[in-house]
């Protein structure tokens, strides 16, 4: 099998690029105005946490089920309706040859395709293999590595097919997910902020953990969406929403070094749940002595 290349160009920033403006709702089913849009939820390599976010909408779940026809969602129902689908939510990253084919079929039968979470958007934690020798990984975990079929790289969905909107987070935020549903039903682009976690800290009235107590924090380069959760719990942000647009990762890396972190620590901070997002990948590689570039 041939390795999946890491995307050569930076991923488009959230909300600003054409890729993140979903088309106006066009019901794929010919049932007319009365037909509810058909929703499908797909799983690739992931922890299931982003799908669970749908079921965690306890107050909205039944209303949601009233507004859309849940046509395919194996985590929630054994009932399965064939495509095409009006809205496909995709969780997880592409890590096997079979899945690289499967995502193309799903794209072909989906009017609108939205990725949910860091795996589907940036390859997830399993993209740590992208910086290592997968054969070695296989032999660490499996007694019979020859039986395990896996690509050398874990890649986000947009590496393979056109994505209409990418919802960030590891896991996604429930409020942002509901905004995606509302926007879809109303035929408008989701309103999801593209600013940094720093902005959310200011809005929340948090004291800056990096300035006040020298705690390493990824907030300045990380896209908002969590409500500045980690700084509110007295820890630095660990970037689970991935890079914000025009993130100055080099400047943050310098600051982290000034706080006393070594190159290896800086490399690890950029190499977690969004390790394959281009801005983070470049910065982690810059601090990786002897690693695979």
């Amino acid at each position: 099998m041939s390795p999946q290349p890491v995307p050569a160009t930076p991923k488009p920033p959230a909300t600003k690029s054409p890729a993140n403006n979903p088309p106006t709702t066009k019901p794929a089913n010919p049932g007319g105005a009365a037909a509810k849009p058909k929703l499908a939820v797909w799983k690739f390599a992931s922890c299931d946490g982003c799908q669970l976010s749908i079921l965690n909408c306890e107050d909205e779940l039944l209303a949601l089920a009233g507004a859309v026809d849940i046509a395919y969602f194996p985590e929630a129902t054994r009932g399965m309706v064939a495509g095409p689908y009006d809205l496909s939510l995709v969780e997880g990253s592409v890590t096997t040859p079979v899945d690289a084919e499967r995502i193309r079929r799903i794209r072909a039968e989906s009017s609108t395709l939205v990725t949910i979470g860091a795996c589907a958007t940036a390859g997830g934690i399993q993209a740590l293999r992208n910086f290592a020798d997968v054969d070695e990984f296989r032999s660490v975990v499996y007694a019979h590595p020859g039986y395990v079929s896996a690509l050398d790289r874990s890649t986000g969905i947009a590496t393979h097919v056109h994505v209409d909107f990418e919802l960030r987070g590891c896991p996604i935020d429930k409020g942002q997910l509901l905004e995606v549903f509302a926007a879809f039903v109303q035929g408008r682009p989701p309103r999801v902020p593209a600013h940094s976690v720093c902005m959310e800290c200011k809005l929340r009235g948090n004291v800056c953990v990096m300035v006040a107590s020298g705690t390493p924090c990824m907030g300045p380069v990380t896209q908002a969406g969590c409500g500045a959760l980690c700084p509110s719990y007295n820890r630095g942000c660990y970037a689970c929403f991935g890079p914000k647009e025009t993130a100055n990762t080099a400047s943050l890396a310098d600051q982290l070094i000034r706080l006393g972190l070594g190159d290896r620590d800086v490399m690890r901070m950029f190499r977690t749940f969004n390790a394959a997002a281009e801005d983070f990948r470049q910065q982690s590689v810059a601090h990786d002595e002897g690693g695979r570039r």
Partner: protein
Amino acid sequence: MTHKLTGDQLLTTDPLARVEGEGAMTVRVRGGSVTDVELRIFEPPRFFEAFLRGRAYTEPPDITARICGICPVAYQMSSCLAIEQVCGVRVDGPLRDLRRLLYCGEWIESHALHIYLLHAPDFLGFDGVVDMAPHAPEAVERGLRLKRVGNEVMTLVGGRSIHPVNVKVGGFYRVPTRAELRTLREPLLHAREDALETVRWVSGFDFPDFEQHQEYLALRSPDSYAIEGGSFVSSSGIAFESADFDLHVREEHVARSNALHARLHGVGSYVVGPMARYTINHDVLSPLALEAAAAAGLGATCRNPFRSIIVRAVELVYACDEALRIVAGWEPPSQPAVEVTPRAGVGTGATEAPRGVIWHRYRLAGDGTIRDARIVPPTSQNQASIEEDMRSFVQDRLDLPTDELTRQCEQAIRNYDPCISCATHFLHLHVERA
């Protein structure tokens, strides 16, 4: 496809709905006898144990949470215990209580999810909770209420319910105030009533006449129902500490399926999870949970996997009870975490995830760098027993139309609340065709 199984046939369920992750099962029938059952998992490998090598000793709680979005706390807690053991640290008192409270939140959320959204629809003949809602609106609302309270507990203590951010090796980044914790009291009181109603509701379901006689394995603590730690005890009396887990449990390669099956030394396949915990620890349940269990007809053990839904409901009552007990008596510690200084060595940690015990082992270098990691999740431990269950279950039901048999098999697998995405790396991705 509604014809019956005769002669040499394959029954395949594909993919298995309503388990977290996607699996499939193959049953091979030859001359009217079940010769082979294989539960397969369509989950690509993610290589956690490999990429943990070289990471810092502070990172496993955040990284291993991502193995499973349904039981992240279980991974966080087992990894913390293991690393604290390497470093010679013991977390006790209010910090341990806070961990137990967070874990109770995960039990409430996960058990409510499984009982109401995933398993009850099987018993009542629905495809899923959305179909069930118009027919059992009160029950569905009760289930969603319970689930919400579990998430509230996790959100307050952990920062969020999926992949909590507040857990660290040694304790927490920030501990709540007493006043913050007290806000959980009212919701938990309501949840406990809902949990008691849950026991009554599920104990009225129809249960297939089916028994299995597997060995049960669970953690045990001297004075409470083990959740966030304990020693291993089995139903036949085998007892060992977490540090000796890999002396007692071997993962065997099964040539037929290329899967690894966990085997208890001297016994063979075994079961972890609610039925095992209840059998081994029911004597230390709270009085209210014991009373609910007795009223639901549970005795000293539970041997019918279909009745595991009742045990889960009893554990819901217990988790609410425990959460209330901790909330009522909790005093904040002077520090949110114990200082943990890295040192070279090996440590293990085991805790009870909602679906069964999770065991972690780490070897650290002197500077805290992880040299190697091993993680044994519950579903890989139950895998062999699920297959054995299915063998006798299908044998007695070969006369059923295929689609009905398929539905019943799915229900039987869901008895174990399999967390497919945790167990993925024990399975070979291979589809057999007759």
